[in-house]
């Protein structure tokens, strides 16, 4: 060979890229770590049971501390001028006033007097008025098609007898969304302006997004009492963080030139924010608004556990009584509401970004045709409604119920396919789920903590090692280890299944435009569906249990795996693909040797998202009787046991954080190895 050196160099660098030759050092480290783990595992059972199962005497009574702290907060805490209870009362009033107004308008009518002795002074908006106004909004924001869609969705609510509950739900959404958007915007702007503030809130936001909603339902219940106010506040906590993030991100995305312009023409700070930055970023800000709406709807069911009422309550009640039909109907009503609100908000976003030349000074009627039409409609139906009840409230005689239909359908499936379904379920349970669950359950906690720390060290240095080690040790120390392992098992199995299904779909879709468009439509739709909707069909077919939970989780967490894979593949530099083709790669080689390798970081992030989705879904699957941390939180909620709820909730958050940081570090390393960063 004429020039051996470069050949070896090129070969080994390629090997390194492929992650095969990770170096002898790494190899040795891994062998040692795994050996140590094995030794701990094998010997712990006989000689050191404290390493196998966390000893009861070492437990940290975190739950008790949290409960005591809450008690102190409610009874004694004071900020000098006002007490903590004053603060919560103030917040409650802030939410309560608009909520009462919205509810009067949409559902209860204007009442005089309190409680059951209240009499209606004015009726709520008639159903015709609401459907009409929604259609008008659709017409304004997106033309006839959107008007038909939005109006149609609302009409369905009336026809299927879900009107009253739907309006209660809508009222809480109408309150939560503006507060969430405004609050998120203000916090986001503050974070953009003051980096210190951003540093302070980022970990909080991380925590808020990874911690399951259940965990803070309990303290909210204790602080604000059972009722719609508490539900709206829980919704806000859940829906606001993305708005904060999107706000800072989109403000940061404003072109430097635009900022220079603002300074050059002598804007004050306030003018800069409200006249230059926010309007320039408004398109991406609208994405945040849409997110807040969707997340608020996602919370509907969970919020009903602390008194939201409305559709969520209907679903929950039906689910508890296993009335598939009724639950499905109310569930579909939430979907209809979600679709209508989602499309409307997207319509408004588009409208904002492509306004046509302003129609200057014309008459009042010409300038505000939609507002006027809506007012006329409201007044007219209101007046007519006083005389004709059918105009005011949709006549019950015309309602259609599909409940029995669904129930018959399920019965039919169960009669005809019971054996097949049962066989499938048992096969998966016996061959996959149960063995894996048992395997995880038998692992010594000390070994797992050590292995996680080692992984953290390999992927991201000693800080990541500390994080992974300490957080997992905390899970053990607070007595959550066993339930955490069940959580990991359910989530892990589901995430693997979702990845195995999702990644091939993503690969297929990335190369075929038609298929990609379809996949986008489907995944957009799936993402509009509130997460519990996935639970319904699974329960119908497989009743309660781990398998049902797994199906629901897989269905819910599939979308990110598909999306990130396809996007990652599509982002691969076209020049590289061309180069590969010029070298004579076959399609398969192109895919495996170039595209998948370069898209690996993105795919890893997709898997990361899949895991996050799966974790957030686990809490909902607690409704079908899993025995994981989600269930723990659910029990704490029914008992209003703050400490227990928060500790279990934090354990889920810890699992999420460990998974997130490890995978992100892995993706980062992969990127660096390929010279992408």
């Amino acid at each position, binding site marked *: 060979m004429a020039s051996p050196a470069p050949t070896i160099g090129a070969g080994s660098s390629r090997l390194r890229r492929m992650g095969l030759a990770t170096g002898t050092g790494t190899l040795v480290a891994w062998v040692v770590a795994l050996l140590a783990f094995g030794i701990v595992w094998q010997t712990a059972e006989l000689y050191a049971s404290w390493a196998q199962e966390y000893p009861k005497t070492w437990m940290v009574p975190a739950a008790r501390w949290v409960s005591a702290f809450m008690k102190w907060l409610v009874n004694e805490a004071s900020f000098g001028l006002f007490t903590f209870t004053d603060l919560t009362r103030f917040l409650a009033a802030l939410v309560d006033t608009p909520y009462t107004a919205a509810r009067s308008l949409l559902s209860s009518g204007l009442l005089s007097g309190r409680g059951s002795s209240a009499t209606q002074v004015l009726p709520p908006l008639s159903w015709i008025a609401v459907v009409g106004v929604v259609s008008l909004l659709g017409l304004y924001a997106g033309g006839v098609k959107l008007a038909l869609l939005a109006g149609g969705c609302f009409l369905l609510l009336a026809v299927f007898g879900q009107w009253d509950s739907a309006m209660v739900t809508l009222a809480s959404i109408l309150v939560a969304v503006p507060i969430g958007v405004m609050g998120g915007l203000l916090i986001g702007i503050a974070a953009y302006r003051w980096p210190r503030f951003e540093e302070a809130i980022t970990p909080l936001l991380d925590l808020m997004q990874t911690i399951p909603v259940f965990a803070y339902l309990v303290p909210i219940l204790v602080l604000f009492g059972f009722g719609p106010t508490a539900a709206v506040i829980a919704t806000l906590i859940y829906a606001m963080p993305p708005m904060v993030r999107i706000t800072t991100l989109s403000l940061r995305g404003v072109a430097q030139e635009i900022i220079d312009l603002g300074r*050059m023409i002598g804007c004050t700070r306030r003018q800069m924010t409200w006249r230059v930055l926010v*309007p320039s970023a408004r398109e991406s800000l609208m994405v945040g608004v849409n997110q807040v709406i969707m997340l608020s709807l996602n919370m509907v069911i969970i919020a009903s556990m602390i008194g939201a009422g409305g559709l969520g309550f209907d679903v929950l009640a039906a689910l508890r009584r296993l009335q598939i039909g009724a639950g499905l109907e109310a569930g579909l009503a939430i979907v209809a509401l979600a679709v209508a609100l989602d499309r409307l908000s997207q319509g408004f976003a588009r409208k904002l970004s492509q306004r046509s030349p302003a129609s200057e000074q014309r008459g009042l009627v010409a300038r505000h045709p939609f507002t006027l039409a809506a007012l006329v409609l409201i007044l007219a139906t209101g007046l007519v409604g006083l005389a004709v009840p059918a105009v005011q409230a949709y006549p019950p005689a015309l309602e259609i119920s599909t409940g029995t239909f669904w129930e018959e359908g399920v019965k039919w499936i169960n009669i005809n396919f019971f054996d097949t379904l049962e066989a499938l379920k048992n096969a998966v349970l016996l061959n996959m789920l149960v063995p894996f669950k048992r395997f995880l359950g038998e692992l010594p906690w000390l070994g797992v903590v050590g292995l996680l720390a080692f992984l953290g060290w390999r992927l991201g240095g000693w800080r990541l090692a500390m994080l992974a080690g300490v957080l997992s040790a905390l899970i053990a120390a607070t007595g959550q280890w066993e339930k955490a392992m069940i959580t990991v098992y359910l989530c892990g199995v589901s995430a693997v299944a979702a990845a195995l299904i999702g990644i091939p779909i993503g690969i297929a879709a990335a190369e075929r435009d038609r298929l990609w468009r379809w996949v986008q439509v489907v995944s957009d739709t799936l993402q509009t569906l509130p997460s519990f909707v996935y639970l319904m069909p699974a329960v119908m077919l497989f009743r309660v249990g781990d398998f049902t939970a797994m199906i629901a989780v897989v269905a819910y967490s599939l979308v990110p795996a598909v999306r990130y894979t396809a996007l990652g593949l599509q982002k691969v530099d076209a020049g590289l693909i061309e180069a590969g083709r010029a070298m004579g790669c076959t399609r398969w080689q192109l895919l495996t040797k170039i595209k998948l390798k370069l898209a690996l970081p993105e795919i890893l992030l997709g898997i990361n998202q899949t895991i996050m989705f799966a974790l957030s879904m686990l809490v909902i699957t607690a409704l079908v009787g899993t025995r994981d941390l989600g269930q723990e939180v659910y029990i704490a909620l029914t008992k209003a046991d703050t400490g227990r709820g928060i500790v279990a909730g934090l354990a889920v958050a810890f699992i999420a954080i460990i998974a997130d940081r490890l995978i992100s570090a892995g993706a980062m390393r992969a990127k660096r190895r390929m010279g992408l960063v």
Partner: protein
Amino acid sequence: MSLPQPKLICRNVWKLFGSGAQEFMASHPAPTLEELSAAGLVGAVRDVNLDVRAGEIFVIMGLSGSGKSTLVRCLSRLIEPTSGEILFNGENLLAASEARMIEIRRHQMGMVFQNFALLPHMTVVANVAFPLEVQGIDRTSREARARQMIELVGLSGKEDFFPRQLSGGQQQRVGIARSLAVEPELWFLDEPFSALDPLIRREMQDEFIRLQSVLKKTIVFITHDFDEAIRLADRIAIMKDGAVVQSGTPDELVLSPATDYVAEFTRNVSKAKVVKVASLMKPAGAGLNGIAINAKATVAEAAPLFAEGNDVLRVQDDAGKTAGALYRSDVVDMMMRG
């Protein structure tokens, strides 16, 4: 003849990017490029001295990354220089308070941006009126003023369009109109035509020359295009790696480039089209008669006059007084050199 007062003076201005720039500058008053890179700093602007005189077009020319944008942002104090002094009408800008800077920028400075920096949610009129809106001027008067400016840049009829409905050239006209709306004394243009294709660029340059002949502003114009610099400039400063390598009139640069770097730019320029008669003339002996040529004409314009067999032309100033003599041999010599 006394030169006009400098409107903007820039003395020993440095801008270093990177952490610890301030401390580094304090300990190294005049760092070399090597010292900077050893300290992990980027010397975007290094020891720049400039005088911009009232009413002139001062062009700053340099390749991408040479520090032009950073320098012009230092001049308007959008970027805080690491050290140095900037005097605007004799006032030290770097000592001005935030409020004073807002005041100066609102009334005395205007800026045109490479990528237009139009606000997408506003119509053309609203964009042009925006600087006035920020000052709190009422709607009718600011829109009247905006309409005047729109007419000035030749965009009448497009007042109610949104930026995305306009072509690049039209968008930059909006940017120009906006920067003129406040009647600035000092007008910064940062590569205003670089994002436009060559034909439109040419057209916009002509438009710019026309505007300046009406407005007579003091202008700092940034470009990376030497031809553009030659066409527009009264004086040019050429930048390389953050430092000014030569500054002077187009004639001076073309006739005596200070470094190879500058010579490289001027090589492909037709000198005759740049150099003014005044730069090539010799002192006139008494009693010189014959065909006259204005001292401000280019050599290329003078050349055809030699065709009638003259060996020497009488050079006169604007008032018609004899200023010198232009010899055929000098002209031929220069044309031969390219």
